[in-house]
């Protein structure tokens, strides 16, 4: 299915959701462009999400009830769609984070043991 294809911008499969959820958790309600800019900024420009990756991802999260999109106005008086983390989204973020931490720890242990 097309939505399960890995994003072309070098995003690790399955990590885009976590990144978006984390960004929204850290920064509060944001529009898509702000999310992309924030991710580009925190990765030092290494992660440039194009619209064809970001927005279907946001739509998927919204369809799963993890985020909620509403139209609002930016600081520069421009209409934009703002995404808010829902309670389910927060639970999902916690679960995915814990999962990710465990994976990292496991990988580190394996890689360290292999030296």
């Amino acid at each position, binding site marked *: *299915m*097309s*939505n399960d294809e890995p994003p072309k911008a070098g995003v690790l499969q399955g990590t885009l959701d976590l990144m978006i959820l984390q960004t929204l958790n850290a920064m509060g309600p944001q*529009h*898509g*462009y*702000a999310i*992309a*800019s924030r991710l580009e900024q925190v990765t030092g420009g290494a992660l*440039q999400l*194009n*619209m*064809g*990756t970001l*927005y*279907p991802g946001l*739509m*998927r999260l919204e*369809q*799963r*009830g*993890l985020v909620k999109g509403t139209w609002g106005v*930016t600081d*520069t008086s*421009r*209409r*934009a*769609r703002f995404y808010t983390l829902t309670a*389910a989204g927060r639970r*999902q973020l916690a679960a995915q984070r814990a999962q990710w931490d465990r994976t990292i720890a496991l990988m580190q242990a394996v890689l360290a043991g292999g030296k």
Partner: protein
Amino acid sequence: MPGRLREWILRLTTMVRPGRTDADIEEELRAHLALAAEDDTPPPEAASTAGGRRVALRAGGVDQAMERMRDQRGVPLVADLSRDAREAIRSFARTPGMAVVAVVSLTLALALGLTVFRVLNAYVLRALPYPASDRLYSVVLTAPGQTFLRDLAGMPWESLDDIVEHRIAWDLDMLALLGGEYPEAAAAAWVTPGFLEGLGVDTALGRRLQPADFTAVGTTPVLISHRLWTTRFGASTGVLGQPLRAYSNERPDEDATFTVVGVLRPDFWHVNTFTDVIAPLRTPSWPYMLRLRPGVDATLVERRLDAMVRASTSGVPDDWRPLLASTHARYVEALSPLLTAMAGVAAIVMLIACANVSVLLLVRAVRRQHEMALRLALGASRARLARLLAVEGGLLAVTSSALALALSGGLLHALAPALETHVARRVPGGVSALGLDTSVLLAALAAAVIVTLVLTVVPLAGASLPALGAGLVSRERGDTTGRAARRVRDVLVAAELAGALALLVAATLMIDSTRRLLDEPMGFRSNVLVADIALRDRTHPDPADRAAFFTRLLQNLGRQLDGAPVAIGARFPLQSTPTRNVTSAGPGGPAANAALLPVSAGYFEALGIPLRDGAGFATDDRPGGADVAVVSESLAARLWPGERAVGQFLHIPDSLAPDALTTPHRVVGVAGDVQELPPDGAGVRLDLDRLDLYVPLLQAPARFAFLYVPEGALGRYPDREAALRRAVAAVHPEAAVSSLRSLGALLDAVRGRPRRLAWLLSLLAASATLLALIGVYGVLAYAVRQREREIGVRMAVGAAPHEITGMFVREGARLLARGLAAGVLAAVALGRALEAQLFGVAPVEPRLLAGALVTLAACGGFAFWWPARRAAHVAPADVLRGD
């Protein structure tokens, strides 16, 4: 995972309830680009590039993102298909005429096909409405021309019980139910235990017949039909145990009181005429049908039967053979010529409709070649184009198929009675079997799938694929349509013309045949009512009593109806009549096989048969009267050519002792020729020799007779039937009138058969011809349009208008010639299929064939001359400037 489930439910629901609109999504994406442009600070190395374009490149295209979001929004395949469907509907809406023509022609063709299929399904494909009906076989113990074996009933049939499960026999009878104002006729069947078991006869109320019922003496327990229960007993449950007073035509002096023990289920259906009363047959009988045990082969039963018959009786001819034929197959065998002919016609019309719609789509595809090539260039895959064509074809096919299903249902609902009369076979299990069932739905679905395939593959093969690649180029070159497209198109148009010609010829054959049939003078008038009258043996034991009854009846009626001509006869003119080999008296006198018709005085007047010479019979005739006869003109001419028939003598052999000497009958009159038209099975047969011999009925009246009363004579009675019944009952209360029919209605039923077929075929032929002409016209008109550039160039370099017209006329003539040549072959084949329905015309009539050819050639010629003429009026400058 609930989140994922929620996602899919949402995605699926977008199929019916759209989620975010495209506009909403697009606005979000545009906002993204705008926000990006706002805080865009060009890096130093790219300072000169236009900011917006760089942002767009980095962010990815809006269109591409839109596409991916649409996929995320719904289910991609479904979303694509529904988008294609919307696109197809929009494109049909742009050319509504084409869409309507396509749907109408497909609907008509499919409706015809489905109607034929539903008839085929009801009669042939569906099993007879009996449990395990494939094990039911009809037993034929005397082939045509074979002698009838004696004592069949007394043979040891039970010796076959190891291979035969049930022996099914019935004895049809007419009961006169007593107790009402006048006796009511009810069809009855005296049946064997095997009949009930073998045909799975069940009751809706009360009990079934039990073994004891078949041996007991005393009152006879009977089962009555649901209809009789409703009409005579008001559907009361109190009917059980009630006496039914009646007498039987076959056993008039047996116990006349029956006891109702059960009511048959409303859906009980008997292969023979419907029965209102089922009674136990208490005398031995031989089986008409057998239910074989599971796995038993019919040929084995035939062998055993043959051996049994030969062992139990002597004098069985060597060439005698018993025959077992599937009951179902026997029931429907008379239908097969008609069904074959109709299936052939349906196939031709479907072929024409499919060809026509294919041509329309093909022409449309060619016109859209540029658009399609553009789409290909823009990255649409060929599969995507094929999908679009399939969706368009599918939309047309499904719409037409659904409409056709409804149309065929309506047609059959309206035509079921006519159909049953026409094929002289009731629909097995009742007319509801013509309704929708799984096979019919599957057939409609299959038809839709096939039509979709044809409508996808033909335009694809004909136009898109070979031409598409060159679509952009060819337009530049001013080239005409692709060679493959033209070939497919030519074949389709030729097929349409061929089909139209075949149907046209078939229709003219049928019309000609019907005209001849209707032109044949019947020789009698048809505004006459015919009533069947039956007397009881007990009340009228000998011919003298019966003669007295009929004489009084005729006198009474004559008085009551102010001297209107009333008469009785042993047969009626539409019935097939037994013949006798009558000879002119005197040594070596000529002989002829003549139909023997016992009639009363007044018969010729009542039926309007002219007396050419002499007189009819005396009104006071009775047993022992003078041996006189009236002959038909044809018989007179055959027996006494060139002589006056009145006063001559002839011998009528006894049917039981053909060689015995008989007293000669003196011819007293010569009557006009009359046709007997037997309404039997499929096919048309006319009584062509018209050799009829009338003898005085009242000299030896049987217990049954037909009473003839002119329709007008009963005009003043609101209920003619009741009036007649009362008049009969007034002469004797137990004389029964079992049916009252109008000779005209009977005649119409018989003549209606070819008339209906002729109508149907004419209608089909007309619509097929019209479709084919539309096809020819369409193809030529579009060919002209396709080649406008070429025409423009030719005219610019000096071609005369007539040369341009000639160019297209030649192309049209070539198409027409091929189509008509194929059509002649198809017409010959269809004519042979219709052979059984034809009267007085050969299946191949060069005269009619030539007529149809000329008609179609003329119409076809006009259909292509018109667009060709228009081509010559193309203004070169307009065309060349066109692009």
